[in-house]
């Protein structure tokens, strides 16, 4: 690339301005006045450029949000006797019976898979970070990037082909005779781990990179064992990152829909699936607003998740920058 004689328009600009940036930054400290003026001129109108984004957000995100809140507390328009009256029925129904079971099952699955993925992802990330082979690190991180995005349908079908009723591994090891079923809570857990572990590796690697070698050396010089180093130095520093990662995984397992929809059908009740069913009228007609109430529950859980995640992320950034 460096020998290419044709100067691409980007390269002269990039090198040129790289120098320019440094030069003017030193200039600002001495003469700040000439720097301000051109920017002040554009300052008045520049916020206009944010208007399209704000408008889109208001319509595309604001209206559905309003629809969820209003819908959750009113009667369905497709139900008998018209709709639009204020009611708590949807919300109370959404935390009872089968819907509550689905919610609990979703929470249990998300918590379990996030916990397992955190516990398994940490040693993998540590193995990669401490390895001297850069190609290994590159390969694992690239693969993690792909697999973390490999959720949804392709994942479900790959596992059906592997561990499903007619799957290759199932046939090879006669797993059905041993009572194995992919279409169960355990099966779903194994499938979810397939994209959650790589996500954990990606999330925790920067934090592990941030652990200074000096800290470990200092611990060793004080005759600390590896276990003591981890117990008293590394884990306390990593804890916010680990918890943040756990919460992130929880959220992404909780929001997942496609994998479960393609795989388990109704054997494992999940809140995302019950929303889809209520929306499509699979269960009963006139439950459109019940779906909105269920969505509201889901958003409440997700908001709680983010409320835990964001401060943790900020806290871990303080140590590991």
């Amino acid at each position, binding site marked *: 690339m460096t020998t290419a004689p044709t100067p691409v328009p980007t390269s002269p600009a990039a090198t040129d301005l790289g120098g320019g940036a440094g030069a003017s930054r030193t200039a600002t400290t001495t003469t700040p006045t000439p720097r301000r003026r051109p920017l002040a001129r554009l300052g008045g109108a520049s916020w206009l450029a944010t208007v399209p984004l704000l408008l889109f957000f208001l319509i595309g995100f604001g209206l559905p949000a309003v629809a969820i809140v209003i819908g959750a507390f009113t009667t369905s328009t497709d139900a008998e006797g018209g709709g639009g009256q204020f009611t708590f029925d949807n919300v109370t129904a959404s935390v009872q019976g089968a819907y509550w079971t689905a919610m609990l099952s979703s929470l249990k699955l998300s918590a379990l898979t996030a916990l397992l993925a955190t516990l398994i992802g940490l040693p*993998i990330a540590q193995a990669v970070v401490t390895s001297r082979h850069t190609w290994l690190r590159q390969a694992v991180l690239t693969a993690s990037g792909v697999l973390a995005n490999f959720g949804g349908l392709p994942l479900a079908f790959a596992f*059906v*082909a592997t561990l499903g009723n007619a799957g*290759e591994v199932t046939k090879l090891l006669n797993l059905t005779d041993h009572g194995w079923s992919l279409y169960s809570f355990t099966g779903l857990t194994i499938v979810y781990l397939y994209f959650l572990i790589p996500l954990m590796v990606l999330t925790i690697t920067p934090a592990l990179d941030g652990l200074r070698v000096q800290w470990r050396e200092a611990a060793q010089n004080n005759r600390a064992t590896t276990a003591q180093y981890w117990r008293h130095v590394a884990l306390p520093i990593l804890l916010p990152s680990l918890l943040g990662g756990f919460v992130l995984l929880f959220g992404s397992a909780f929001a997942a829909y496609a994998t479960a929809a393609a795989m388990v059908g109704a054997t494992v009740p999940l809140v995302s699936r019950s929303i889809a069913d209520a929306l*499509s009228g699979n269960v009963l007609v006139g439950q459109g607003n019940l779906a909105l109430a269920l969505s509201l529950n889901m958003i409440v859980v997700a908001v709680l998740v983010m409320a835990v995640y964001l401060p943790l992320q900020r806290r871990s950034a303080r140590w590991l920058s």
Partner: protein
Amino acid sequence: MAQLTPARTDRTKVRWWRGAVLGIAAVYFVVPLAAAGYFSIDDPQGYSLEAYTGLLSAPGFLDSLWLTLGLAVVTVLVLLLLLVPALIAVRLGAPKLRPVIDVLCTLPLVVPPVALTAGLIGVLRWGPDYLMDTPFFQTFVFVQDPDFPVVLVIAYVLMGLPLAYRALDAGLRAVDVRTLVEAARNCGASWPRAVFTVVLPNLRGALLNASFLTLALVLGEFTAASILGYQPFPVWIYTVGNSQAHMSVAVSILSLLITWLLLLLLATLGRERHAKTTS
């Protein structure tokens, strides 16, 4: 010297442990892919590539693929057109809006795709009731056009917003936009020229990053499309899966390969840009 010996045994122990961890992980992650690959060519009479060769002639394959590609391109364009001007403006002249944009672009993370879809359906249900005789009704019809469902673009833009925002914000953080624009303006460049020939080329990596992430998102998105009742590629795979298991697995493998290629392309392009700036 006494300290050197335990250190060395420690290191070999660590290496053994590392190999075991990575080995087990490799088995867990490779076996399903290999098994799926084998499954897609496995045939009672031996092996057959029919699942792959039959794809093009499969009903609905090309239609759904084109629909998905069209949606992906429009989504990427809309996202960039909304985000890039806003983010550059925030850096240049409206720093007070920055936290607002930051919160707005993170908010969609809080709403799971299923809930977002439910909300969109809720809005679409309002349409006919209240706005039957107004031009708004036409908008609702247009938004739900089965040939090109704009409502899906809206959903995808919202889902892609946090990803694209993070990518672009990281890119903008690496360059000093203020100084760049100032330098260009001082050299007599017009506003559009300063943005298009100076700022955007410097953001090439970030723009590509944001585009690829969005592209990967749209190519794999199933929830909104299936609940709203459209048939882009992922929904087509699902439909095929019910009747032809081999073909659905084959397509799944292909889609994984496509994602992989996209990410590799992204990594190479990013590295190229990096090499150019450092040289």
